[in-house]
């Protein structure tokens, strides 16, 4: 069946050959012969299953392999984080001991708090700066804006390792002591572009005439921003903020280059502890980080829809004037 359909898909690009017996297609022709023959018109299958033609079955297999490949290791990490034994091969029964161990470890706890703090600070600053940049890029029209547009994309395409090394060199050159502050600065630098790209998308969809209408109706520039632009952008801003939170929270490369001695962010701490042997606590930490990141991303994805339905008007009620 699948072969038959692939043959037809190919046939769309070439004039259809009634009996494809070319050298390379012998197998296909044979496979075709072994099938139950279609009716005299040769169209029986097409009529009975019209939807199958543009959905070759092997694509489902590709998707299935991809899903297993991606999610099986994650599922195993989650499963073994609840393992009663120390083994990373055999599941010896359910237990939450590795979670207790994690929270009992002051160093790991400190790292968790550091990571959360870094993520929150990065999120706030990068979201504000990125939103301002997006507004400027979309609304300002001058000769520099195409240049700014390209510069803005640089952090997205520069390999993180390069960004990490550059940040490290910069901080040591200017004599800044590596600490949580340097990590936050590095994270902000590379997060701004993400915010800008997300917010800019929404902003481009916002008709310029809407802002002019607000001015026309007596709102000053500031009032227009506060009462019209921000409420329209709000879902995108919140989504961008949560994505930045997730990115910053589990970032390793940048953090690794810019971190001080203590406290180290969680991913860096995990990396150093793995060098002294893997304990199942890693699985528990991994699962916890996964939960935090997935929650942030899920909220980011769901928010525009929830806010969209209620119009994002939560910020200004009817009597706000």
């Amino acid at each position: 069946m699948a072969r038959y359909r692939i043959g037809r898909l190919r046939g769309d690009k070439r004039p259809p050959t009634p009996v494809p017996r070319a050298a390379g297609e012998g197998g296909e022709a044979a496979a075709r012969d072994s099938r139950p023959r279609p009716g005299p018109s040769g169209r029986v299958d097409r009529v009975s299953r019209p939807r199958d033609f543009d959905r070759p079955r092997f694509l489902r297999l590709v998707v299935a392999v991809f899903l297993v490949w991606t999610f099986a290791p994650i599922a195993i990490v989650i499963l073994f984080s609840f393992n009663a034994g120390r083994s990373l091969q055999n599941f010896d029964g359910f237990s939450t001991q590795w979670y207790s161990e994690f929270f009992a470890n002051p160093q790991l706890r400190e790292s968790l708090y550091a990571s959360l703090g870094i993520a929150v600070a990065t999120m706030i600053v990068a979201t504000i700066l990125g939103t301002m940049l997006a507004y400027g890029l979309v609304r300002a029209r001058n000769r520099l804006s195409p240049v700014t547009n390209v510069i803005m994309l640089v952090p997205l395409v520069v390999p993180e390792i390069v960004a990490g090394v550059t940040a490290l060199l910069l901080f040591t050159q200017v004599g800044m002591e590596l600490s949580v502050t340097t990590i936050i600065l590095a994270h902000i630098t590379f997060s701004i572009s993400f915010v800008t790209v997300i917010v800019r998308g929404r902003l481009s969809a916002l008709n310029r005439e809407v802002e002019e209408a607000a001015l026309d109706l007596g709102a000053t520039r500031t009032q227009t921003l506060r009462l019209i632009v921000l409420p329209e952008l709000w879902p995108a801003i919140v989504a961008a903020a949560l994505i930045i939170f997730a990115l910053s929270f589990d970032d390793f490369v940048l953090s690794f280059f810019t971190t001080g001695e203590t406290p180290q962010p969680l991913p860096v701490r995990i990396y150093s502890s793995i060098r002294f042997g893997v304990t199942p606590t890693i699985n528990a930490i991994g699962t916890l980080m996964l939960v935090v990141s997935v929650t942030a991303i899920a909220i980011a994805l769901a928010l525009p829809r929830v806010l969209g339905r209620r119009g994002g008007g939560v910020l200004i009620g009817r009597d706000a004037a």
Partner: protein
Amino acid sequence: MTVEPETRTGEAIRFESVTKRFGDAEAVVDLGITIERGEFFSLLGPSGCGKTTTLRMVAGFEQPSEGRIFLEGEPVESVPPYRRNVNTVFQSYALFEHLDVFENVAFGLRRRGTGRDEVRDRVAAALELVQLHGRSDAKPRELSGGQKQRVALARALVNRPAVLLLDEPLGALDLKLRRQMQVELKQIQREVGITFVYVTHDQEEALSMSDRIAVMREGRVVQCGAPEDVYERPTEEFVAGFIGISNLLEGTVDGTGRVRVGAALLVPAPLPDGCAAGERVRLSVRPEKIALDQLEEGMVSLEGTIEARVYLGMTTQITVALGDGARLVALEQATYRSRADDRWEPGMRVTIGWHPEHCLVLR
């Protein structure tokens, strides 16, 4: 609704040799028109003729490169958009999607700190005016195009501006709704007595609603006058061609006060002052002024052959070849007298004619 006489007289907007350039391109050139209070004034022209730029300069979104604009006698160049006593109805409606209909309409009043009760009453009255009472809780996305249009109108009118600016407000509506809204807009304008400045590229819209029309082309006003003037007595070929279908015949002025078209045709036509014999001119005749076969006393009469016939329902458009490459389009109105089989076929010989006063000589 009675309007005080003094509010209906005097000027609403005056342009004094206003020019607007974007880089090297001139959008508006040496504009000098005065719009009276209470007038329904249309700026008509093809896209890119500067009509929207003109409107945006009045609203304050653009500043003139040269010249001055006066609003009710006061110069406005230093007044920001949010302090000008004008309101705009945008082509895209530009409604605030996150606010409901009530808050959209109330937006302007709230910015001016109007009291709660007054806001409620005036918004209700404005929604009544545009026949949208009962939809005040709806969000813009729940409304149809025509309803959004009405909200945009109510949102602007509720502020009782000195001038209402409308930028092709009916452009996004389908034909039937557009016709209906044309009638309503005109009615509303009469009711509220506010000066309307209406930008459109649709000649029928301009003709049906306006007190006066300014026809614009490449940034300049080519003719400004009442709809009848602009339609019946276009001063330029562009106006004749842009408003309605127009027949243009090339010719030269004959010594006997007639126009010679081609080699053999001599057409009597009222010549403008100072037209010398031998001057190249164009003759313009509106299609609906042309009679086929049943000529009246005093008509110019020409022989021709039917070249094409297009049935348009209410009218039939007939192309007549006059020889020498000259052709005319005639519109024949369907009436209670005509029969379905009573029609022109290509190849038929026909006599066409028109009253001399319906023929314009354009230089």
